[in-house]
């Protein structure tokens, strides 16, 4: 293979010819280098002269701090109160306050329940335990035990009746605003259709309320 700098007779092109000349004449190379050095120095001096003027600057900075999202319960939380000697057709009311304690409002909330002690009471989706949740615009007025609640404000449905075990059940009509509280009443019912197979059973239900932040907005 031929070197790109090798002479190829009459077919050599200009760059090749120039290169050949440059490298074949030592004095010319030195002249060329000297010329370029002079031109470079002149250009540098001219440039310095061009930018040599008054300057001034200003700066700005901003701090971006994230908020907090905190879902808490209380002061009312009766969900830990169980019930015994439950018969078909019985219902149990328990109140819980959900607090949106952080600085960021919530966009939605869900409820997940699971049975830490399981029986047909929680596995029978038809005749087993069902729950429903409603909300009072003010704190529920409690009486009992056995606990029952009345609302002096306005009630709305948060969760329609559903089997007591559920995952990520969407909760409706919640306030969700940072700093506010929703007063909930959870009603667990053993349907009147519950048959003898549901006698003398025990289930333990754990409740987990999960809230997620509101959608992102311009700040």
């Amino acid at each position, binding site marked *: 293979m031929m070197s790109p700098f090798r002479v190829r007779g009459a077919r050599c092109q200009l760059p090749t010819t120039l290169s050949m000349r440059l490298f074949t004449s030592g004095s010319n190379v030195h002249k060329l280098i000297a010329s370029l050095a002079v031109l470079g120095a002149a250009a540098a001096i001219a440039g310095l002269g061009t930018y040599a003027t008054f300057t001034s600057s200003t700066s700005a900075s901003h701090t971006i701090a994230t908020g907090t999202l905190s879902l808490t319960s209380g002061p009312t939380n009766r969900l830990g109160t169980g019930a015994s000697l439950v018969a078909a057709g019985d219902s149990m009311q328990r109140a819980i306050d959900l607090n949106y304690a952080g600085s960021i409002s919530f966009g939605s909330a869900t409820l997940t329940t699971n049975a*830490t002690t399981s029986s047909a009471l929680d596995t029978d989706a038809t005749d087993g335990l069902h729950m429903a949740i409603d909300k009072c615009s003010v704190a529920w007025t409690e009486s009992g035990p056995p606990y029952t609640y009345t609302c002096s404000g306005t009630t709305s449905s948060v969760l329609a009746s559903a089997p007591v075990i559920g995952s990520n059940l969407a909760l409706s009509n919640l306030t969700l605003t940072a700093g506010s509280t929703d007063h909930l009443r959870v009603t667990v019912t053993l349907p009147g259709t519950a048959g003898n197979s549901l*006698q003398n059973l025990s289930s333990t239900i754990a409740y987990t309320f999960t809230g997620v932040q509101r959608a992102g907005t311009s700040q």
Partner: protein
Amino acid sequence: MRRRGRHPSPELRRPLRWGAVLGSAIAAFAVVSGSLAGLSSLTTGGPQTIVTKRIFSGPRSVNAVDVRDASSGAESNKSDALSFADGVVTATSTAIASGTNRYLDFTMNSGRPGGLPVSSPQFNFRLASAGGAQSGNGCFWFEVRSGGSVIGTHGSYAAAAGCSTGTTQTTISTSIPEVTSTDQLNGLLIRVYPWETGNPGKTKVVNIDLATVTGSTYSAFTAYETSYVDNTSGTPATTPWFMAAVDGTTYTDATAWPAAVTTTKYLKLTFDPGVPAGSVVTAVSLKNVWHASSAVTNGGTLCYYLETFNGATSLGTHGSAGSPQACTASGTVFATDTIPLPEVNDATKSNNLLIKLYYWVSPTCGGAGNPTCVKSVTDQAEATFTYYLD
């Protein structure tokens, strides 16, 4: 020479490729996760333990199993012959030998609350040879059937579940652990294959004195037969217990009722509901399905009132001589009376409940111009106990 890039050796290419793929996947995950990330928070409630009653409230009906007829002024035992070891026996319709596969079916009542575990269940069968020349012993094996299926077999023709000796009645109790729930117990069917071991040429009948199932739920119970099928001849013959159902199988008392109430003349009914101790009894009632043995003429009617007892202690009366509980003049149309018995309000009174029905013909009977004194015909006498157990 043209300079060439260095290429990895073939053994390095594959790891490099996988590295590239994995790196891309991680990058994609990071990007997607970043785009989906958001704040969330949770709080919990509970745990909340919910326990149901041991027995839900509900009605449980049992028919009278012990019946005493004192229409004559003296009690006569008219109880279910197969419910008590009392010497009142039922003979097989046919002489029966080993290996015939002829059987007796006993269907048990359904007086227990459903869904309860049963402990120590056993079948109690009392039998003996009817005797006679060259007679032997009474033997049997049996099947336990529930819901139309055989759930247990006890013994065989080669190895009897039990035998009596000669004509001496012997009760043989056999554990039937396959009965685990009152759902099986209610309406349980026991199919008994009996045989008599006497001279094959003179095989004799077997006398049955008792066929019950006992055990315990929260308290001891006895399940009595409500229907008995004798298929020892090869042709099944059914004998319902006359108090068990409205089925036309009736009991007519022995003597015509008097012209005025006499407290020594009555039908006495005893129930064995097996209400568990501690149960809360919320309602008890008696259903009496009856009519006169013939039409009561000349303006008369057959009437009754009743008295409830806790054993020997009177609890209350329903109706009186001056104000009957019910009357009828019909000799064919059954009257159905359902009478609440609020004085029977706990498990003890329920389990010891005894009811006397005092019948008479009102305003009088016998003699010229008066209606003829008549008997009563009873199709069903059933008590219903509504209770629960915490």
